[in-house]
């Protein structure tokens, strides 16, 4: 499979994190339809990526002060997630987890401030079974990545990190707390314009009593075996009926009926079910998936939005058929969709590593650069998530992208040089062509390509010696990775 504007390469940039040489070999033999099937039906692939951490053939991780502890140390949790982006055999699952992280944007720092670093990391990233307690929020996103949105929404409302992040755990009968009730309508479902202040008040009352409890066998919340779990606290639930300006159910109209406190958790289920099934939620998710998978540069056409929303509603809010619809739509492969999205910083990092190589490189090297590029995983700036698209690009963030590329290329310099065979070293032009084979930027205009060749030809006369290639290869890689053409997926 050649690099460039080919459909499968495009698919892997969008539905995955780009293609390593091994991915090129694997997917290159498939039809586009089978490749989409392979990505969508990821449960047929083993979920074993974490077991590769620490093995020589994979990108490294860096531990600080002892063991690698991704369930209790947030920096290690970040490394584990980046490792998965680079190496997972289920790239679409990781991609959707990232999509949901942006959609239900939750920041570790506030969760840690409300609990402690160990509990907050567990709430964000615990892999179930590795320590006592419920799965972390990221694992919720992974496990329900393509499931029913209604179920995901209900699980998010019960998610310990979310209950701290949007203060749900302090929402009580006598003093309802509006934070989650507002954002679940404004940001998580149908969006602004579909509700009133009175709906916000009512939504807050719906979730009274949805709370957390600390399970603390060791008597110490700092102990990794302690954990927070969801609890419905019936005596904090406000039992009166709640009336909205939009339908809750066919039978009850716009009102959630008064219920006994013991049954009051059903209020929230009814409310979230109504939101998940609302046609404006369907359209909003359709538009978000358009921007994520197809194009940021053109808004979703009505035909797409209505088609996608219809698939979502017909399938009882299930996301898998919706993503299937998106990836198999004619818009996905339209030439105007190619490179029509700015890469997020984590996408840039994962793709650069996959294409440049990683032998002897630790993914922890991306930690500070990612912060300077504007994206620290588990730390979105607010509940609205990151500012996407051109918002990623500023002078400072471009320098950070270029400088990460420099670190990576310098680290990989001998690998990069070694993989250019002698036959392709004969001229600067041929050398540039060979280097471009391993990367997937959008096609360079003549002037930009000439500048690359001009750089290779600069200095001492070109001989293609090992010494010369060792010098030029990393800088050419840096120039490609740092070029505007590489900042799009």
């Amino acid at each position, binding site marked *: 499979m050649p690099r460039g504007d080919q459909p499968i390469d495009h698919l892997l940039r969008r539905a995955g994190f780009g293609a390593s040489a091994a991915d090129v070999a694997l997917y290159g033999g498939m039809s586009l339809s089978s490749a989409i099937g392979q990505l969508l039906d990821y449960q047929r692939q083993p979920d074993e990526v974490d077991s590769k951490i620490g093995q020589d053939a994979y990108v490294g991780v860096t531990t600080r002060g002892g063991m690698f502890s991704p369930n209790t140390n947030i920096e290690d949790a970040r490394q584990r997630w980046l490792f998965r982006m680079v190496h997972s055999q289920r790239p679409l699952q990781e991609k959707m987890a990232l999509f949901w992280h942006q959609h239900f944007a939750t920041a570790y720092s506030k969760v840690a401030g409300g609990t402690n670093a160990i509990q907050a990391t567990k709430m964000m990233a615990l892999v179930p079974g590795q320590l006592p307690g419920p799965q972390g929020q990221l694992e919720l996103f992974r496990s329900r990545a393509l499931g029913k949105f209604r179920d995901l929404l209900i699980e998010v409302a019960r998610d310990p990190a979310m209950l701290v992040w949007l203060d749900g755990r302090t929402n009580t009968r006598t003093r309802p707390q509006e934070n989650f009730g*507002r954002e679940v309508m404004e940001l998580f479902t149908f969006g602004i314009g579909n509700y009133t202040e009175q709906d916000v008040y009512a939504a807050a009352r719906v979730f009274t009593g949805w709370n957390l409890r600390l399970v603390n066998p060791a008597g110490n919340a700092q102990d990794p075996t302690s954990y927070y779990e969801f609890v419905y606290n019936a005596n904090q639930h406000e039992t009166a009926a709640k009336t909205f300006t939009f339908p809750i159910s066919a039978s009850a109209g716009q009102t959630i009926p008064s219920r006994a406190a013991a049954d009051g958790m059903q209020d929230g289920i009814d409310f979230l079910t109504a939101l998940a099934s609302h046609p404006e939620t369907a359209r909003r998710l359709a538009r978000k998936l358009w921007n994520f998978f197809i194009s940021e*540069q053109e808004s979703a056409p009505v035909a797409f939005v209505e088609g996608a929303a219809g698939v979502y509603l017909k399938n009882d809010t299930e996301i898998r058929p919706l993503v299937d619809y998106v990836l198999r739509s004619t818009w996905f492969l339209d030439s105007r969709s190619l490179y029509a999205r*700015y890469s997020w910083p984590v996408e840039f990092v994962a793709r650069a590593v996959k294409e440049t190589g990683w032998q002897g490189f630790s993914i922890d090297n991306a930690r500070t650069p990612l912060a300077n590029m504007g994206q620290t995983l588990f730390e979105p700036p607010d509940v*609205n998530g990151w500012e996407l698209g051109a918002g990623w690009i*500023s*002078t400072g963030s*471009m320098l950070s992208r270029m400088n990460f590329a420099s670190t990576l290329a310098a680290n990989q310099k001998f690998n990069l040089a070694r993989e250019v065979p002698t036959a392709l070293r004969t001229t600067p032009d041929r050398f540039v062509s060979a280097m471009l084979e391993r990367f997937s930027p959008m096609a360079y205009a003549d002037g930009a390509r000439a500048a690359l060749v001009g750089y290779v030809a600069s200095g001492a006369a070109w001989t293609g010696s090992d010494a010369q290639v060792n*010098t030029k290869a990393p800088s050419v890689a840096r*120039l490609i990775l740092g070029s505007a053409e590489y900042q799009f997926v």
Partner: protein
Amino acid sequence: MASITRRRFIRDGVAAVTISYAAPAFLSDIARAQGASSRNLVVLYLSGGNDALNTVVPYTDPFYYSRRPNIAVPAGQVLQIGTDSAGKAVGFHPRLTGLRDIFNEGRLAVVQRTGYENSSRSHFQGTDIWGTADPGTTSGVGWLGRYLDSLGSTDPLVAWNTTRETPRALVSRTVGVPAIPDARAYSFASPNTGAEAVAERDAATRMAAGSDSSRPHLAFVNSTTLGAFGTLDRVGSVVSYQPATTYPNTGLGLALKTVAGAMVRGVGTRIFWVSTGGFDTHSNEGNAGAGGYANLMTTVNDGVFAFYSDLKNQGLLSSTMLIQFSEFGRRISENGSQGTDHGAGAVMMALGGSVRGGLYGTTPSLDPDPANPTLENSGADVRYETDFRSVYAKVLDSWLGVNSVSVLGGNFKSGPNIL
């Protein structure tokens, strides 16, 4: 530099975008020609919706205490700043000792109850409205962006955003405002050194210089790269700034120190944007001595007071104005989490050598009677009295020296006389 702005791509489409280039080498000359003596404006955004009633405390209002049983600042602890025009006494949160000192020097103006009709209680819509200065529009160019457009400058460093994301207010048609949270990280690295690294950077410049307007997104990234290369040296000059004043080790302290450094080094920046977050205090606000809100007040006070003192030392106070805003105030009654939910009327402040200090606007009565005209939303929220755009108008007309009517798209000249 290319005259392309980021959000315009997404929200306004690419058709409206035009591109023009100036050679980066000339940029620093342009900046110097504009002169370090130019007036600066620093905009401080308190992100999350600042609880105005605990910043400027109506401590003589019994409803303040009855509606905030756990988070009211005790009357005996507020810092007196006098009375409003109706004779109602208010005081600063006890952590605002530095701001009180600036107030007493007559260099701090406090404008109570700022906002607009039908205030959005959404952070994002609210922030966008304060950015566009148009309650009917949440996208497109911001009010400071329109000011930058009026300057006709081709230097991206005419404005300096110290946060990572470009705020709506700074979105401009002609200037791609750089985001530089930390001048030390604003550097350029190569896998090689010496002449080889220079040749690589030259190639990067040539690669970035060649794009055409038929691919505007590519051109935008390229122009950003050129902007980075063209501003590296000037931004780098700020790193070595060593103020005599000690700034607090907070994000805000570091940002304001960087701003002061840029002013002292005369890099040519006219508009600085700084922000500090955490004001979405739905829980655990605390009151006077402890709790989340006291910490927020300490962060603001210590950062701003260090900045003020530094500028005074450097003789830059007379050329500097700082204005502070937040997207909304908060509900009057505390919630069950010892916090407050999203509300309406907000407090703005302005300080600087030319600011006419004092208390502007009237203090609300917090009586929850739905007929109380100083409140709205059935007595739940403070109703605005001063249109926030009238404060912007004052800054534009009397400080930046441009016609506010053209920048704001309307006449808002009736604002408080803070300059």
